[in-house]
């Protein structure tokens, strides 16, 4: 397993093995990130491929100051948002998701899976803001720039997303789910 420095230097020198190592070591993590945003496997795979193409084109400018994975992850997130921009993202959230709206046969068995399902069913823009802030650590100013909204709107969306998820958690408890989180 090559170190980040070996991979970067190898890529800068044009060694094919270094490029391949870059894919072998990080593709699965980037795929998880892409799935979190795009939710469809085929679209996530396309995003990961596009992400790697952009990485290949710009790795010679990489300056070793960052760790490699956060840089890759940022490019992957940008690529996913670019994919999403091509689709219609409703900026008017649909309202609170009801537990009863999830079909019986799709109800997950575990507590965490249920929460994940609730997260995936959040209004698109709420879900994006939540993922960007909580999962990937973006600041509201950065989110605002990426999504073309104001910083305060980003804060409001995150608060609403949390409110919905908390409400969903209450409903889950009321319907007999037991928290798996200690």
């Amino acid at each position: 397993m090559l170190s980040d420095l070996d991979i970067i230097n190898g890529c800068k020198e044009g060694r094919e093995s270094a490029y391949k190592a870059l894919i072998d070591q990080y593709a699965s993590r980037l795929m998880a990130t892409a799935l979190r945003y795009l939710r469809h496997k085929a679209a996530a795979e396309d995003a990961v491929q596009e992400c790697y193409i952009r990485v290949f084109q710009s790795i010679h400018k990489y300056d070793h100051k960052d760790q490699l994975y956060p840089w890759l992850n940022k490019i992957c997130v940008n690529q996913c948002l670019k994919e999403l921009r091509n689709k219609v993202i409703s900026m008017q959230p649909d309202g609170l998701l009801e537990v009863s709206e999830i079909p019986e046969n799709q109800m997950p068995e575990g507590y965490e899976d249920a929460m994940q399902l609730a997260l995936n069913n959040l209004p698109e823009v709420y879900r994006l803001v939540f993922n960007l802030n909580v999962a990937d650590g973006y600041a509201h100013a950065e989110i605002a720039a990426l999504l073309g909204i104001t910083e305060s709107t980003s804060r409001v969306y995150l608060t609403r997303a949390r409110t919905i998820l908390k409400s969903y958690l209450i409903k889950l408890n009321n319907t007999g789910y037991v928290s798996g989180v200690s």
Partner: protein
Amino acid sequence: MYQEYHDWEKAFKGQAANEKADINTGNVWNHVKNHIPAVQRKRNWMPFWLLLSGASMLVAASLWRENDQLRVHNNSLNNQLAGYKNRLLSCEKRQINMETHHALAASNVKTIENTQSVNPTKEKINTRSVPQASATNAFSTSLPKDAPTMQENSPVYRDEVNLPSLPITKTICLLTDNIKIPGISYGMKVFGKPNLKRNFVAIAPCFGVSSLRGSLISKDLNWNSKNLYQWGAQFSFGKYLSRHWFTALQLNYLIAQNQSSFTSIKSERTEVEGTTQVLIDANGNVKTIAGPTGATTYHQINATLYNTAHQVLLSPVLGYTLFKRQQPFLSVFTSAQWLLFNQSSGKAPLGNQPLGKSLVEQWTYRQKLPSLGLGFTAYQPLYHNWQLGYGAQALYHTDQFSSAEMILNRQGVSMNLYLGLQNNF
């Protein structure tokens, strides 16, 4: 409940950081391997700079050699002049001797004439015949009592005076004091050696304006960046290669103010279920038909942002100095500036993105080529070896802002004015 939610969010965050998903890496590799860029050959400037250094050294060596030859020539002329001086002194001494001899001879003639009046049979003595022995009594004006009888046919004796064949006019630089030879002028021009200093140091605050600018225009982005003005200080250490040519190493610290104007246009499509048609029949009944309806909203963000770059630059300088009364009067010079260090503060180049910790590393700034400059400095003597230097310098810059996604190239000219102190030593 809230604690339960926070625990879940914390667990979700941890899971997201280390989450992996299945992906066929071989498949990904097959798709992207054709996009591996050809290895970009790093521009190797070493041969160019070696060549330039070699040429500079040759010029310096030739100037040094010329200077050395002049010094040798100067020494040779000096020795020659010292020889002339000795010969002239010798001539002067002999001239004095000759005058003394003439005086003595005239005295002898007078004595002989007096004797002839007593003994008119004696023939007149040749007044030019001077015995060698009488030279010892050159300053005696009276004839000794036992003066030798002058022989009529005694040989005529005189010292041969060989005057050196001096040039009529010749410019000779002397390292010694001027020679004063009273009564004799050979048309020599004699100069003292200029009191030249070989090195100098200078420090000067500077201020300048720039027309350094670049634009990036795409379908949803219009980004203009320009360098407005800069100020700072420069420190120079220089050495004269010859009387006029000098080379110097200059260290500049500049604070440059950049302005970025940013226009981003993004479109958003909003669709909701709503009334798309209203039908009124003949009886006046109103019927509505629902369907997807929506609108496209365009968001335009305009921003003008400023950031400040702190830069340290190193410049080798080659120049030519004109002297007036042995003091530097005016210098013209050319230089090349390398960026050693750059630190930006303020807003990131891309408009409304703040310089957050996560983004600051994403943007890089670099000089594309060394900045080439031309300038001049005028000098005013102050005290002793100190001088006031003031002048201007024009530089051609090329630089680049880049992130993983976009590159903005800028180029242009900046003009700096400076006023400082120079010490020659």
